[in-house]
């Protein structure tokens, strides 16, 4: 599925920006054309004064609006946070390969702000009536975004849901829910464990990776990771060949 508009860059209006958790925000942007996006794909935002655009997973699309969730980290996200309803924002995309949606019992895992693409995926699976379970981990209850349907929440400090990392509940959840495919997004260390666990249980894993990006379209070769394909280790661009990869193809550091 690709953008039905011919150009993948446009300046659009912010239709909504709201705080959804501790230093996390939802921003919705108007798109004056229908935009079809696969969960796992991302858009990149021009942040005033910065050389590199900032990539964010698409969190929602509806009625010509596109939404992303972002956590405040540095200059770029502070800039986006400073925007107000009606302000203009320069976005490009959607880019990359999203999750390869299977008609199979699906376990979705989001760690921290990694919730964004899997929450989007969940809504797509619901539309497709594919049975699924979304489990998500956060530092504490303040980090848990509001208005997102999460089936099972873990917090490191136990202030909401189960206490501990999502990884602590991975084996148990697999045993109970018996997924046929696992989709995940979060820090690399978490994804690595998920990929290994998937392998142990012989379940396909799809992981959405992150890497600092320059071009976002595969030309600069700035965001490559090692991928094992047909027995050979090759470079794959997270922006173009990913960000979603099969967990067992990634050569984990």
């Amino acid at each position, binding site marked *: 599925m690709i953008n039905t508009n011919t*150009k*993948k*860059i446009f300046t659009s209006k912010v239709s909504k920006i709201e705080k959804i958790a501790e230093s996390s925000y939802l921003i919705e942007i108007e798109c004056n054309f229908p935009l079809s996006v696969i969960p796992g794909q991302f858009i990149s935002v*021009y942040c005033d004064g*910065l*050389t*590199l*655009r900032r990539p964010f997973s698409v969190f929602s699309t509806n009625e010509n609006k596109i939404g992303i969730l972002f956590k405040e980290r540095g200059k770029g996200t502070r800039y986006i946070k400073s925007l107000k309803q009606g302000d203009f924002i*320069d976005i*490009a995309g959607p880019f990359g390969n999203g999750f390869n949606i299977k008609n199979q019992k699906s376990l979705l895992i989001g760690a921290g702000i990694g919730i964004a693409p899997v929450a989007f995926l969940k809504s797509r699976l619901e539309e497709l009536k594919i049975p699924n379970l979304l489990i998500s981990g956060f530092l504490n209850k303040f980090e848990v975004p509001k208005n997102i349907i999460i089936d099972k929440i873990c917090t490191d400090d136990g202030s909401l849901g189960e206490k501990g990392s999502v990884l602590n509940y991975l084996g148990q959840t697999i045993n109970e829910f018996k997924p046929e495919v696992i989709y995940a997004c979060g820090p690399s260390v978490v994804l690595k464990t998920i990929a290994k666990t998937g392998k142990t249980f012989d379940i396909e894993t799809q992981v959405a990776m992150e890497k*600092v*990006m*320059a*071009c*976002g*379209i*595969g*030309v*600069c*070769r*700035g*965001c*490559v990771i090692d991928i094992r394909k047909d027995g050979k280790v*090759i*470079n794959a661009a997270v922006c173009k060949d990913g960000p979603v990869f099969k967990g067992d193809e990634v050569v984990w550091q």
Partner: protein
Amino acid sequence: MAVTANILSTDLNGLILQNPIITASGTYGYNCEYDDFIDVSKLGAVVTKAISLRPRAGNKNIRIMETKAGIINSIGLENVGIEKFLTEKLPVLQSKHINFIVNIAGSTIDEYIELSKVCEANKIKTIELNVSCPNVKSGCLEFGTDESSLYELVNEVRKIYNGFLIIKLTPNVTSIEKIGLAAQKAGANAVSAINTLKGSSIKLNLIKGKFQKEIISGGYSGTGIKPVAINAVLRLSKVLNIPIIGIGGIENLDDVLEFFAAGAEAVQIGTANFTHPDIAEKLLFELSEYIKINGFKDLDDLKKELRA
């Protein structure tokens, strides 16, 4: 049929471009990768990613880091190699009528010779020599940092290659004039300046008393290098007779005009393509509007006034 004169037409001493806006090597892929954003065939030219004899996998470490005024890259010349370029990339350039310049990179003179032969045999009309590659023989010094190595290199390539030959100069030298003069003497048709500056950046993250460190050493590009690039073009234009293509930190029309004023005949846009993937076409449009609105006859007239 009415013929509309092309006011942006750019004559680089024999190489005629439809306009002076070129996209720089390493920032634009091989052919039409930016088709999602602009009509690539409208550009003066696209310079391909540096192409080597054999495919290269590039560096293992951190490849990109942003700094306050640009980025540092350490891609390590990852590319598909000349063979794949010819079979997979060149046909697209041709079928889409994209004006292109092939950027080539070697680690020995022989490799450059071999690459030039292939380009000549395949009727590639314009090549740009990336001479910021370590010269394996001379103990890792770059070709472009030593007059005599550069002279020898360009001279050898000139013997084989009959097309338009551009030498891309590195700013990491004591005297860019001497290197430029060596290129000219050896038969270059034009120089482009500048390639990236040597730069490093260290990101520190203190976690429980220990620093997590990300270090990058590589090529510095973007707005922060523009003063160095303008300086290089000013100096080169005082000593060279061949045209200069200006590169370095161009982000807007003012920057383009500044390069013309310094003596550049055309410009290349690099890092700004990442920031604004449609910038090249935008500049094209703005330049042409600027000429019309301000009553200049054409680009040459504008350049004349800029240098008056």
